[in-house]
């Protein structure tokens, strides 16, 4: 089977690592309540990718990734300054940056496609992702960056936990919340730039959003959520890539997303902690025992507002 060809194995390994890295960063984004920021930044990366290509005149991945990172970072900065220094709210700021950067990217893409060698460079694959089009050096880069992201998240596990849960307490411990925020944005951008080649700028966000939400249905522990989300993300990367290599010209990104969504639906129904069936079961049991809610001290949420 040509699926198991040497190159295909490498591609599978890299989308597995990518999925794991995206899944883990996604958990951070989830607890920061910034799920759609990843969508914004991935669109904002497109002009960078194309500019990187135009500077080098050919597909040199490291340069393109660097330019993509700069462009995405600039997008993040713009969202923040629009939100902070005008009455425009964050959701609109994200929509503006997302669509305007993407428009610019498409404009640049038509230039790049006119350049010698541009038409065949497969730049269009950056929009929907085409794992099969990746060459060995692309794969190596992806794997290295994904591994770095995973290691950084694991090494700083305690720090993430405390700064996400209670930023002011973390500050009291002498942890720089600013530094943690910059690092978080850096990780987000890294995953996006390595992900766009395999998954595409439009859908890479899904790989950061869906596994984290799915993991939430299985556990209340931050550590377990990280592990599960990484597994779901890796699994989705692996399965999606496998399916897309079955047919010629099938885009990889959409299959990865659909695999992730399938895991989400399974989690939503059967998740051991918050899954619908479990919740229903407990609710039934609580009713069966005839227990009435008893007045207690405080309520966790809800009372006001």
């Amino acid at each position, binding site marked *: 089977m040509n699926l198991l060809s040497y190159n295909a194995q490498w591609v599978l390994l890299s989308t597995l690592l990518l999925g794991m890295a995206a899944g883990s960063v996604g958990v951070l984004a989830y607890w920061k309540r910034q799920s759609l920021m990843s969508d914004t930044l991935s669109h904002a990366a497109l002009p960078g990718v194309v500019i990187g290509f135009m500077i080098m005149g050919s597909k040199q991945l490291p340069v393109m990734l660097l330019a993509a990172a700069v462009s995405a970072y600039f997008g993040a900065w713009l969202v923040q300054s629009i939100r902070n*220094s*005008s009455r425009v*709210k964050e*959701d609109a700021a994200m929509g503006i940056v997302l669509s*305007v950067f993407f428009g610019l990217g498409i404009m640049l893409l038509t230039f790049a496609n006119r350049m010698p060698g541009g038409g065949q460079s497969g730049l269009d694959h950056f929009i929907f992702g085409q794992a099969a089009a990746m060459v060995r050096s692309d794969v190596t880069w992806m794997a290295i960056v994904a591994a770095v992201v995973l290691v950084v998240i694991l090494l700083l596990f305690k720090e993430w936990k405390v700064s996400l849960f209670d930023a002011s307490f973390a500050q009291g411990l002498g942890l720089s919340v600013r530094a943690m925020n910059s690092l978080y944005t850096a990780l987000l951008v890294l995953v996006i730039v390595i992900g766009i080649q395999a998954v595409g700028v439009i859908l890479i966000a*899904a790989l950061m959003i869906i596994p984290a*939400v799915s993991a939430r249905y299985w556990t209340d522990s931050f550590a377990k959520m990280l592990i599960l989300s990484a597994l779901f993300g890796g699994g989705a990367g692996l399965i999606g890539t496998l399916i897309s290599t079955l047919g010629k010209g099938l885009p990889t990104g*959409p299959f990865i997303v659909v695999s992730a969504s399938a895991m989400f639906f399974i989690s939503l129904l059967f998740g051991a902690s918050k899954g619908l069936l479990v919740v229903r079961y407990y609710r039934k049991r609580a009713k069966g025992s005839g227990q009435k809610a008893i007045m207690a001290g405080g309520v966790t949420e809800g009372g006001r507002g």
Partner: protein
Amino acid sequence: MSYSAWILLTASLVGMSCGLVGVLLILRRMAMMADAISHSVLLGIVVAYLVTLQLSGIHMFIGAIIAGLVTALLVQSFHQLGVQQEASIGIVFTTLFAIGVILISTKAGNAHLDIQHSLMGEITFIPWNTVELPFVGSVPMAVVSLSIVLLIVLLVLLLFYKEWKLTSFDPVFAASIGIPVTLMHYIFMSLVSITSVAAFDAVGAIMVVAMLITPASAAYLWTDKLPTMLVLSCSFGVAAAWIGYYVAVWLDTSISGAMAFATGIIFLISFIAAPRYGIIAKHRRSRASAALTEHA
């Protein structure tokens, strides 16, 4: 009419409908719902095509409205099941869009539908796809459908103007005086869907997002009056269409990409220099008020 006149008319119609709908979108803090709906509309169009095997206007509109409402319903129900609003939007539209892309690449690939088109639109082909109308003669299909959509948007907006205002400003109070807030939410989602699908064919999904959110956000920085904001937003949308077109012709580049970029330029100018809420004005005012004593 000449070729470029038809393109400008098409894009101006997109700018006007999106400008109107966009104002309500950002005031209701639903900008990212527009992003979601403009993407999942693709699935609606593809499914409508696979069912009817034709790409005619009415089927596409029905498919798109259903897809838009399904998106809104799914986002709402996941949210009620405890998923964060943002995450819920992210899950729904990426999944529906992914399914749409897969269907195109496996089943509908040979048709007039293709992926590139769905994202960037094919405004350059619009003048050739015409219909014969009584009295007017031969008119591009897109102009007809966009005009109908603009009429619907205008009508729904004006007829229920005060209800839109109240449900956007204070939905809780609106509900307390008996305005059907939920029904209006879904009517609004339908408006976003038909606007998206009509514009989608001309300019593609991302451009719809740009036209929906950016001119309205720019207008938001110029005025404190809702009617003025609506007029400004429309005008900015039309201006972006014209600027974008001529820039694209000049640089020989993607028309819809250039139009999206033009909305960004208009926003940037407003962000810096709008007399009311631009950063220069704000800076000047905060200096002035620092000089004065605090008032009540």
